């Protein structure tokens, strides 16, 4: 195979968070959303590569970065070995003829003030028509333009094309609009199509038709897909290889068959377990991750999944705020609610990096830290094991964590996994 068609190396995309004027004056560091935080993958010619994850994991940001809508903060994007990261206007323009995107919401992706024919003709006007010799030539005649538009319309199955030419997007059904969007993209003869949740907005009974259509286009035009979805079942059917993303990082990547047959990363397992199965005779017990996806402005230390991970180790990256969350959870179950009176209200605890602390106030810090220690002695969880020390310090009780082990991407039975378990 040689060189991959698309090679993404250590891509990072950070977005600034809008802060108040005063907050900016007072400083406190620049807050950024770590939307994509060090992602590497490559796509071979002709394959369907899936990017799977929950909302906010950064998969759509990657899509936008690839088609040049968002500038990467750092990292490289190589198309056929050629670096297209810097992208001056001309390269970007040419790149767009090779990497194109199909939006999730076909209705919104079409300007309501333009007919279908116009929408596609506009692409030809900007990029030229492909001549019979395969060259891109500027459009000079309206007749040729119309012919080209009719060509792509019937190519995507909107027949007869004349019928659709003068229609406005509002007059078409959801599936038809998806086809128009595809036709518009195909007018550019791209090599790679980034499909961002192409069926999420469609009803179940017609979803399959769209997927079949995408596969058929792929065959006919020898396309390569980057298929972005939150739906593991669709990804399993569509993709040759998949990457599972969580909070801006790829946690597991490899051939679909391998990953679905035996998921290695605890997050992948959790995702697969969480899918409801439409078979009432196969109801099952499952272990779900705790809590919700944390804020990408302050991603957790170490492995980002560790605070929710059912298989976490003491070395996964436990830190001060995990202790505060732990106190909150203890308080919620009736057997352990006692903790609140013992070590003070949860709200009083502050977390800062590897440290959680509480000002003792009227209480004696030494007594308090003794209580914390006692409470932790019953705890068997990895969080408790990660605590290095609990001791009084001036007027406060301080809980200190050991630093996490370095996280590396490892090859585990035929796929890449980023997890300390392996």
């Amino acid at each position, binding site marked *: 195979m040689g060189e991959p068609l698309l090679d993404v190396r250590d891509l990072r995309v950070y977005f600034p968070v809008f802060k108040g004027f005063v907050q900016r004056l007072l400083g406190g560091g620049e807050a950024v959303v770590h939307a994509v935080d060090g992602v590497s993958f490559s796509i071979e010619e002709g394959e369907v590569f899936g990017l799977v994850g929950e909302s906010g994991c950064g998969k759509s940001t990657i899509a936008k970065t690839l088609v040049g809508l968002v500038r990467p903060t750092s990292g490289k994007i190589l198309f056929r070995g050629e670096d297209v990261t810097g992208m001056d206007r001309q390269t970007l323009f040419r790149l767009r003829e090779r990497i194109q995107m199909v939006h999730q919401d076909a209705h919104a992706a079409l300007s309501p003030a333009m007919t279908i024919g116009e929408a596609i003709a506009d692409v030809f006007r900007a990029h030229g028509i492909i001549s019979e010799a395969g060259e891109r030539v500027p459009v000079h005649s309206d007749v040729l333009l119309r012919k080209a538009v009719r060509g792509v319309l019937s190519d995507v199955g909107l027949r007869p094309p004349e019928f659709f030419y003068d229609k406005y997007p509002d007059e078409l059904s*959801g599936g038809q609009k998806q086809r128009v969007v595809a036709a518009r993209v195909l007018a550019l003869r791209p090599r790679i199509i980034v499909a961002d949740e192409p069926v999420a907005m469609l009803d*179940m009974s017609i979803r399959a038709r769209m997927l079949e259509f995408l596969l058929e286009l792929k065959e006919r035009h020898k396309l390569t897909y980057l298929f972005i979805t939150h*739906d593991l079942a669709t990804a*399993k059917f569509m993709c040759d290889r998949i990457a599972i993303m969580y909070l801006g990082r790829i946690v597991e990547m490899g051939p679909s068959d391998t990953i*679905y047959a035996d998921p290695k990363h605890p997050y992948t397992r959790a995702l697969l377990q*969480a899918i409801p199965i439409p078979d*009432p005779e196969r109801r099952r017990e499952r272990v779900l991750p705790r809590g919700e996806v944390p804020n990408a402005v302050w991603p957790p230390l170490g492995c980002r999944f560790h605070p929710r991970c059912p298989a976490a180790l003491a070395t996964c990256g436990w830190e001060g705020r995990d202790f505060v969350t732990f106190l909150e959870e203890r308080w919620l179950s009736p057997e352990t609610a006692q903790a609140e009176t013992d070590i003070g209200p949860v709200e009083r605890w502050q977390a800062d990096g590897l440290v959680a602390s509480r000002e003792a106030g009227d209480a004696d810090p030494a007594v308090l830290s003794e209580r914390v220690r006692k409470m932790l002695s019953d705890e068997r969880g990895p969080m408790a094991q990660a605590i290095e020390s609990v001791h009084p310090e001036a007027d406060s009780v301080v809980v200190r964590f050991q630093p996490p082990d370095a996280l590396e991407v490892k090859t585990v039975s035929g796929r890449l996994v980023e997890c300390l378990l392996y």
Partner: protein
Amino acid sequence: MTPLLHTKSLSVAFETPDGVVHAVQDVNLTIQAGTTVGLVGESGSGKSTLGRAILRLLPENAKVTGSVFFDGKDLAALSAKAMRDLRGRNIAMIFQDPMTRLDPLMRIRDQFIETIRAHDPTVEAKEAGQRALKVLADVRVPSDRMGMYPHELSGGMRQRIMIAMCLLFNPALLIADEPTTALDVILEAQILELLQAIMGRYNMAVLLITHNLGLVAEFADRVAVMYAGHIAEEGATVPLFREPFHPYTQGLLRSVIDLDTEALYSIPGSPPTLLGATVGCPFYPRCEKRMDVCKTVYPEPRPVGEDRRAVACYLY
């Protein structure tokens, strides 16, 4: 035994500038106390309208006919005040998209207190706060969230709070309208697990409105499949999934994409608009087993098979 809820020829029509939209037509649905009924349908099938029609929450341009019996009482005959008192106390409802369902200008605590005092004005604010804390603990929401505004909370947290508000009066029926559609798959599973736990503890019946067949399979005791305002098929979950009778149910189950899918299937055509009066079976144009009679006369649901499932189709 009288069922907890029973709708009898319930129909809803909306007057719109383009004509009358028949969103729900002649629906007979029964929910027994303590059970879960899944109401499945695609967008525009009228499933959400049905849920709102039960609680009389529809806008003014909706014309509702037929009756809804709850605990043997006809809800349509209730006064506005009695109906209001029933909402939240006897029948509670949670919605899709928890992000927009809480008043953005009011602290969580105040929304709880308001709800409690709406049904029991004698309760002091402080006591109401205590009761709120109790149900919040039931849905595993930390107490400090009480003092926050909705925009400070995550989607999962807000849906938990919505559920907690439903628990305040231990209602006999909970209408859950796509309660997890706006949430990610793990959160969805968490919320469903929570609902299941709470159902048992509070002995609630649930009407689960969803487009997700997987949810229904995992969660519901009985299933009603809705298409174009009609209930196409209704029966116990296990036999219905094992052997669907109605061609639409068959098609819908076949078109689900799950981890075992090897070949794709989709129902030909697209769902009809509900504008104007319809004759015959609404699924007729898309049906692979259609007959001439289907075109002109609507097939009244009749009991079919060993489990005496209600199926609206001439094939049986």
